[in-house]
C-alpha cells in the first residue's frame, strides 16, 4: 500500500495487496526505471512482496506539481516521505546504472528542515491514523 517508516537503514512497507509488512534494506534500493534508452528518474521501484508478488513503485512528485491541496492529510505526508526517500537515495548515489553519472541532474524534493521538524519530529514515520487511512481503514477498524 505504502511505506510507513524510513529508518537510517531500512524502509517499512505494507503490501497493498496482502497487507504484509515488509522491511526493505535501503541499500537494496535504487532510483530509476530503465525503459529502452530512457530512464524514469522519479521512480523508486520496491522489491516484489514475498507473499503476493505485488510490486510497489514510489513516485516522486512531479517538478511542476502544485502545492498539495490537502496539506496534513495522509496522502500529503506519504508524498513527503517518498520525496525525501528519493532525494536521499539520489544523494547517496543509489541510482540505476544509467543515472550513476547524472545524479546531479536528477530532480529531487527533500523535505524542508523546518517542515521535517514540525511534521516528523520523532522520525520519518507516518502517524497511526495516516497509516489507517492509506490502508483504506476507517477509524477503529
Amino acid at each position: 500500500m505504502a511505506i510507513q517508516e524510513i529508518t537510517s537503514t531500512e524502509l517499512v512497507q505494507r503490501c497493498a495487496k496482502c497487507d504484509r509488512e515488509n522491511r526493505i534494506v535501503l541499500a537494496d534500493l535504487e532510483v530509476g526505471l530503465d525503459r529502452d534508452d530512457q530512464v524514469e528518474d522519479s521512480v523508486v521501484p520496491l522489491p516484489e512482496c514475498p507473499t503476493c508478488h505485488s510490486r510497489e513503485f514510489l513516485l516522486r512528485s512531479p517538478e511542476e506539481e502544485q502545492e498539495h491541496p490537502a496539506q496534513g492529510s495522509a496522502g500529503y505526508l506519504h508524498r513527503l516521505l517518498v520525496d525525501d526517500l528519493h532525494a536521499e537515495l539520489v544523494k547517496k548515489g543509489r541510482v540505476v546504472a544509467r543515472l550513476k553519472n547524472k545524479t546531479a541532474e536528477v530532480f529531487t524534493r527533500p523535505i524542508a528542515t523546518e517542515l521535517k521538524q514540525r511534521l516528523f519530529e520523532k522520525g520519518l514515520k507516518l502517524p497511526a491514523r495516516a497509516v489507517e487511512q492509506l490502508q483504506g481503514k476507517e477509524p477503529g477498524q
Partner: protein
Amino acid sequence: MSSRLDFFFRQRVTEAELDLAFALLEQADRDLAADLNIYGIISGAVPAPHSPVPDLTVDLTAPGRAYDNLGQRMFFGTGQTVDCAVDLVGIPTDVATVGNERWLGIFLRFKRQLSDPRTDGNSQQVFFRRDESFELVVRQAPEGAIGVAPKPALQADELLVCDVRRRPGQTQILATDIDTSRRQAFIFAQGTSVAVTTGTWSILQPLAATVQAAFDEADAELRDHFTAVARRHAATAIDYAPHGFVGAGNVQAAVDELIDDLATGAVGSSGASRVGVDAAAGAPNALPAGSVKSQLAQLLGFLNTHVSAPTGAHNAAAIAATPHNNVAGTNVQAQLQEIVTDLIATGASAPGVGLVGVDAIAGAPTAIAAGTLRAALVTLLGGLNGHVNQASGAHAASAVSVADSGNNLNAANVEAALAEILDAVEGDHFRGNEANAGQHRAIRQPPLGGTKALILDSNASGAAATHLRIYADGSSVWFTLNASWDGAQWVRDSGGTFCGAFRFARNEIEFLHEDSFAATFTTWTRTWRLPMSSTVNSAFELTGSVREVGRLAMEFTNSYNATRTVAGGGSVTFRNRFPAAPSSITLSVNSSGGFSGTPSTGYADRDGFGFFSYQSLGAAATAYWFGSYTAIA
C-alpha cells in the same frame, strides 16, 4: 350575828351541843353571805387549754376563790386540771356523729375535807377535822347539730366555771372550744338592795332610788345615745384638738372644715392633695408614697402613655371581651385567635368564608345576592364554570386582552392577535379552513445574514448521524449531516460519528467527508468536487487521502519467427482527478502467462499513470499480465 347557845355553870356539855354551837356560828356566817346574796367565783379558776400540749383536759388557774349560793366558801391554792373526756359519773363525752357537737359544763362544788381521824367513846373512828374544800364536776349535755347543741343546765349548789365544746374525733381542747360567757362570776351585792340619792341628778331619772334602778336608767340613756335613738349630743359639743390642716375646735366645725377641704378643687390645695397614700408596688409601674393627687397624676400619666403607645401595651389576653355571635372567647387575644381560626377554617360544615358577609352586587347576566361570601363565591364559580363550558355564545375574543409581554404583536386583544398571526403565516401556509390545513405553501426566506445562514435544521430521526441542516452562503448551499456552523467553524453534533455534507453551487458540486472526530473543524478531510464550469469538467476532483484501486492489463505476441524482446505498455486514467500526482502505485497480478516479472510504471500525474514491460518471447509466443493497481495520493 348568830343564834347563840348559853352554856351554864356546871353544865355537862355533850358532843351534839358543841357541834350545834359551831353549826350556829357557821350558819350565821353563811346566812350573812346569803342575805347579802354574795356568791360566785371571786378570782382564779380561769380556764385554758392544757399546757404544754393540749389534750382533752382543761387547766384552771390558782389561787381560786368562790362562794356558792349557800355562802359556802371554796378555795384552791394550786392549779387544777379537769379531765373532760368523761363526766362526773364516768360516761365518755365523745361526739359520735359527724356534724354534731356536745357542750360540757365544768362546775365548782363545795365539799368538806375530812382529816385527823380519832376514836370516840364508842370506839368508833371519827374525823376530828372537817375543813372547807371543793371539787370540780364535769357535766355533759346531749350532742346536737353544730350551732344548736344545748348546754348543760346551771346547778343550784354549784358554780359554772366554763362551758367546753366537744367535736367528733377530737383529741385536743383548744381555746376556741372554751366558752366563759355563762361563767358565774362573783356578785357582791344585789343592786336593788343598795339605795342612791337622786336629788341632784339632772340627767338620770331612775324608776327607784336604788343602784340597780340607777344603773338601769344609765343603761337606757347610754343605749339611746349609742343607738342614736335619743340623747344624741351635738357634734359642736365634742371638743376637737386642732390637727393637721383642720384648725376647728369641735367636731362639728372640724368635720365641716374637713369636708370643705376635701371637697375643694382649688389649684394647689385640692382635697386629693390632702389625702395621703402609701407606696403601691407594681410592675412595670409603681407608685411612691404621697398624696392621692400625686398618685392620680402619675396614674393619669401612665394611662395616657399606655393609651398612646403603638407598641409595648399590655397583652391582649388582659383585655376582657364579651362573647358575641360565634365568638365565644372572653378576652381580646382569645377572640382574635378564634376569629382567625374561624376565618381560615376550610371544613365544609363551617368554612371561614361562610362568616364573611357581602351585600348584593348587581350585574347581568349574573348577579350576586346579599349573603355570605361563600354564597357569593358559589354564584361566581357557577357563573365561571358555565362560561368556560359554554360551547358558543361566550363573549367575543375581541373582549379578551393580550398582555404581549414579549412585545411580539401589534394587536391588543385576542381577536386582533389571531388575525395578525394568521395574516403572518397564511401566505406560505394553508389556513385551517382550507384543504391541507397547516401545510406549507412555498417556503420563502428573506436574507438572514451571517457567514452561513441556516435554512433548515431537522433532526427528525433523533440521531445525530442524520441530523440534517441546510445552510446558504454567498456562493453555495450546504447540506450537512452531524455538523452545524457556529459562524467560524463546523461543530460536530456527535463526537464519535463522521460528518458528511453536500455543497451545491452554480459552478460546482462537492461531496464532503470528515472523519477526524474532532469537536470542531474548518476543513473536510476528503472532498469530491465536480467543477461544472471548468474546461476540465468530466470527473470529480478529490482532496484528502486518496486510495484508488483499478484494473490494468497487457498482452502481446512476438510475431517474428525468432525470439525477440517485445515491448508492451499502456496507460491508466483514474476514475477521479487526484488532488496531486500519486506517490505510490502498486501493481498486483491477477493472472499472467508467458510474462516475466511485473510491469513497470511511471509517468504519473493526477489523472493517471503509464505502465510498460519488456518481455523476451519466442517466435509467435504470447505474453499477458492481468492485474490491478493501488494508487494513493
